[in-house]
């Protein structure tokens, strides 16, 4: 079905319905060497490669320059673990109850905010200050989780040597650090999940995540420590 309405158009100089002009001839049927010099492949291909590499660029920077920090995970509904090929991770500091108790919370919530809403509005950026635990027993096989000691809207300037600032974002009543997904191979997901469930039931053997935090506060997950076992993918 095709409807032709061109007759109703008043512009007479447009009447002759000529075939397309030569310079826009269809070429896909007979491409030739002269029409398609090599740069017509390599230029867009280079751009596409740059696009591919730009995806992990920030993560690579964080990997190279970041500092290792250990984060305590929060108990998660075991049925919520598995989403395709990745583990959904939730941390102690992903919960508002933890953040509420930190010094600096009042200032974060006091600033422009809707009334009768006790959390920062969606899209608010903030920094959580984490401190390395003091007594790190040498005989312990599992690293100790860092403790949150403060929260602020702006990046804190004068941090102690044993502190880092981790950038977070409030997103629909949730907290996001960009550390929420951990991809792992399909055949090992079940085993890791079982380990995590066991570790979370028995609180003495906690489940912590090793991450790297760079100077801007961005972070990438490195590996999981579950029940003294280290998973790195």
């Amino acid at each position, binding site marked *: 079905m095709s409807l032709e309405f*061109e007759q109703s158009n008043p512009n007479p100089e447009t009447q002759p319905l000529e075939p397309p002009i030569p310079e826009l001839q269809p070429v896909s049927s007979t491409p030739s060497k002269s029409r398609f010099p090599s740069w017509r492949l390599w230029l*867009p291909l280079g751009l596409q490669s740059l696009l*591919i590499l730009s995806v992990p660029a920030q993560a690579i920077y964080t990997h190279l320059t970041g500092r290792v920090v250990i984060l305590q995970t929060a108990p998660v509904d075991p049925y919520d673990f598995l989403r395709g090929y990745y583990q959904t991770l939730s941390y102690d500091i992903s919960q508002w109850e933890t953040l509420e108790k930190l010094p600096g919370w009042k200032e974060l919530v006091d600033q422009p905010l809707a009334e009768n809403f006790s959390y920062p509005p969606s899209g608010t950026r903030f920094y959580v200050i984490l401190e390395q635990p003091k007594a790190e027993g040498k005989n312990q096989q599992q690293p100790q989780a860092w403790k949150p000691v403060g929260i602020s809207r702006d990046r804190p300037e004068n941090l102690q040597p044993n502190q880092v600032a981790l950038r977070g974002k409030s997103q629909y009543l949730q907290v996001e650090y960009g550390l929420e997904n951990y991809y792992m191979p399909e055949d090992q997901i079940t085993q890791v999940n079982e380990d995590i469930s066991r570790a979370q039931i028995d609180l003495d053997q906690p489940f912590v995540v090793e991450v790297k935090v760079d100077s801007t506060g961005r972070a990438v997950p490195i590996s999981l420590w579950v029940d003294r076992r280290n998973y790195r993918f």
Partner: protein
Amino acid sequence: MDKFRHQLRKEVKIWHAEGLIDDSVYEQLKARYQLDALEKAASDRFVAVLLGLGGILIGLGAIAFVAANWQAWSREIRVLLLLSLFVGVNAGGFYLWRTPAGNAIAGTQTWRQRLGQSLLLLGALILGANLGLMSQMFHLSGSVYELFLVWGLGVTVMAYSLQMTALGVMAVILMAIAYWSGVGELFRPGEPTVLRILLEHFPLVMAQFVVLAYWCQSKGIFGLAAIALIPALSFNTALLPALGLTAAVKSSLAVVLPPFLLWGYDDLNFPKVTGRMFQPLARTLALVFLSLVFYSCAFNWFWLAVPGSSGDSQTAFNQILVIDIVIFGMIALWEWVQLAKPSRKRLRRWRLDQTSSALGGLLIVTAGVFLWHINVYPIPTLATFLFNVQLFLLGAGLIRVGLAKGLRGCFWWGMILLILQIMSRMLEYNTALLLKSFVFVLCGAGAIAAGLWFERHFSRKGFAQEDEA
């Protein structure tokens, strides 16, 4: 073709032996159809099949090997492998596709070119896979729309460079997926990253595909891009907050702007374009859009659901959207000025042709009803009535144009609109069963009678015009 050549070779030998043709004609025929090269072509093809089979087996082996070792390799090796696969497939595809057609019959693609084109398409798919795997390997938690948007942009660049329709179509589809998977993000505040800005201005981003459609001479790209662009434009205009625009203005613009744009589209407004390649398609799409709008607005519940004089929640985060509306509005206005401009035919007279003025009238009434209903006073009953009248006028107008110009599709489209309208009103308002049956029968009989009349009326005239169309 080859079958014919084989047969011809046999026949030519016989003709020569029987003395039907002399030596010179025999040689000429042999040279013209390259009959001596037939054996070589056959053996070439055999070699190609062998090579292809071997290639597939080696490829499968390589995939199995990679899958077996994937976890054992370091991330650097994996990235390197993915990138070299990506570059290799694209480069192989390009150089195969580019090979000159040689002595093949002009206009047909050789197997090399076809294989090359498939490899280039595969390369575009591998681009997406690479983007996804990169984000997975580094445990990134980005949105799906970002992946599709970056992927679509990458493929668009390649489509422009290689002037290849298949890649262009793929890019349009990827962009559409990106928009619909990410449009929810626009309703929540977020940082203005490049990708988010592109998503916000999706209709403007899609408009560049019109250039690609000319570049590739492809109606497919144009049509698909319009189908992706128009709903997005309506949706953004109607639902997202824009600086200084009330809900009434936004909803009437969302309904009226797309058909104005599409109906006013004229290829000749572009410099260097001499043929009306896409105008019929654009106008068809305008009528499809209008049919859908009129049909939905002819239901009474539609007007009961549209809130009368609703309060606007003006939020600061994406007021920039007003730019899209202004730009597309200006384009539509300019297109219609071009339609009405004095031309060689009617010197110094500003006038629209009949169809365009009728359509413009319908659109102005539509915008007016929306404005009045939302801004001034809710008029659900009157609006329903007016839109039923408009739907009827559209259907009748299509039938009339179909009859006048012998366009079968146009005639039947109008017919179906009218029947749909009557049926829907019957089912919407609780009418007696007997009346229902009467109307159904009447509709059916009317459709059959009109259809038969139309087909007979024009079969006498012949469908020469339609064949052109």
